[in-house]
């Protein structure tokens, strides 16, 4: 293990403005006040912060509330010891160059929190979005897609969404464990019922039961394992907002940051990539992500995927397991992107095996187009 002794230090500490019995402040207010105060103690401010650590609440909500867009986040929550554990994570992250200034915050109005039984209705989402029926990701993502349509054309966008749905189904039919077993035509896509206009049913991922896991070890030790190692060449992450209504640009995800970073770390360019595993929570997610990753320019995704280019036999291999759209989607589907990428790199995919399989790019999207993680995997 790298010797991290004296590689980092705690440089600012403080509480929220008042502690004890504070009747009119929410959890998040305590987080924010303490954050500003501790940073001031260090002679720093939020503009310096690129690592965000907390427990018991999402960094999506917390980062949005603070106005910070961190490139490294950690919500490891294991009880009262969490913030001590964050120190170790932060030191490692800083040593690795993932962040320079790690902010660790806590806030809990344990005595005075106003909320209804059964849920923390005091947070921003239940206060400002849920009452309007912003419930479930199809609602959030379909509003983003409608904005994209406004900018780049409704018919063209629809065509791109349909191409992705149909191409992804073709891949799913080649995976024995896929949930969807039937062919999908373009008519099937266009005739499927509306979920949240502009989304058809077939724009939306499945809801399945599934589990997955992967194991990471050192490159040294990996040489002695049973299968061909999928080396991690690059990895980057980040988040931009929590609620869809706070998203800075509904057509661009944080992949604009995590993608180039991961690729630069890996020392590759787009043309080196043999396989793209792109989280397809919705057809639109893929369009926004391809553009954000720089595979094509803004508004060009429909042209990029035209003529079933991403289907089996096409020249851009993408979501070869059949995706969240047609293979499986249990909730946090990102796991399955990794499984397929490694299997393709190893050459284990049988009927759906792609010809060149040296380098794969994986991009996960979380929340309401809120966070991204990009990684580049390769085999020798």
């Amino acid at each position, binding site marked *: 293990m790298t010797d991290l002794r004296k590689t980092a230090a705690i440089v600012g500490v403080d509480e929220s403005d008042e502690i004890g019995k504070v009747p*009119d*402040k929410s959890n998040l207010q305590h987080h*924010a006040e303490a954050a500003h105060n501790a940073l001031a103690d260090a002679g720093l401010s939020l503009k310096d912060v690129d690592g965000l650590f907390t427990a018991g609440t999402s960094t999506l909500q917390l980062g949005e509330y603070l106005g910070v867009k961190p490139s490294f986040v950690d919500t490891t929550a294991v009880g009262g010891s969490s913030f001590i554990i964050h120190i170790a994570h932060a030191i490692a992250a800083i040593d690795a160059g993932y962040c320079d200034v790690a902010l660790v915050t806590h806030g809990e109005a344990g005595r005075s929190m106003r909320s209804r039984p059964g849920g923390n209705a005091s947070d921003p989402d239940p*206060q400002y979005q849920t009452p309007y029926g912003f419930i479930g990701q199809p609602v959030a993502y379909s509003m983003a897609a409608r904005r994209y349509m406004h900018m780049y054309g409704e018919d063209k966008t629809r065509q791109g969404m349909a191409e992705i749905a149909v191409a992804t189904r073709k891949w799913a039919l080649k995976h024995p464990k896929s949930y969807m077993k039937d062919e999908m035509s373009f008519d099937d896509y266009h005739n499927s019922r509306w979920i949240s206009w502009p989304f058809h049913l077939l724009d939306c991922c499945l809801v399945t039961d599934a589990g997955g896991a992967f194991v990471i070890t050192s490159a040294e030790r990996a040489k002695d394992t049973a299968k061909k190692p999928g080396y991690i060449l690059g990895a980057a992450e980040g988040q931009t907002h929590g609620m869809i209504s706070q998203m800075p640009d509904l057509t661009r995800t944080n992949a604009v940051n995590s993608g180039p970073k991961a690729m630069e770390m890996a020392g590759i360019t787009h043309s080196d990539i043999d396989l793209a595993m792109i989280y397809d929570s919705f057809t639109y997610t893929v369009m926004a992500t391809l553009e954000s990753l720089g595979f094509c320019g803004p508004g060009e995704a429909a042209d990029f995927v035209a003529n079933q280019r991403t289907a089996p036999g096409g020249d851009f291999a993408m979501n070869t397991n059949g995706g969240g759209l047609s293979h499986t989607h249990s909730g946090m589907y990102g796991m399955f992107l990794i499984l397929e990428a490694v299997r393709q790199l190893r050459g284990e995919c049988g009927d759906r095996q792609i010809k060149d399989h040296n380098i794969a790019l994986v991009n996960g999207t979380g929340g309401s187009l809120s966070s991204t993680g990009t990684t580049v995997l390769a085999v020798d």
Partner: protein
Amino acid sequence: MAYNKPIPVPQGESDVYWQNAKKGELWLRYCNSCKEAYFFPTDICRAIPCANPRDTKWIQASGKATLYTFAIVGYETGKAPHPGFEAPYVTAIVELEEGPTMPTNIVMDDPTPEKLQIGMPLEVVFEDITDEIALPKFKPV
């Protein structure tokens, strides 16, 4: 029938927002350093950088807005994702005259994609849902 959709729980820093909404007024938090209004209301300005994030105040919004984007939940099927909501209904993000965007509903009978044009002018209306809470919504002008 009793109102059975989710109901906001005001916080100390949003009491003014919800109290004024009950009076039929839309109020925003405003940063004196940034010289910008923002949504949602927080005591501390969320813009980065900001010279003095704690130098903020309340301002009353005009209630005028334009449609930024929308979705029609349960369009043609009438299926809502949560009990209490009657589909179809329109979720929207609107751009307020003062600059910020906010989540809301567009109030409209029988919504269709054709009736909803991005950029269309809107004005705020308030729906009383409890003795304490009125939800700001928007309708076409």
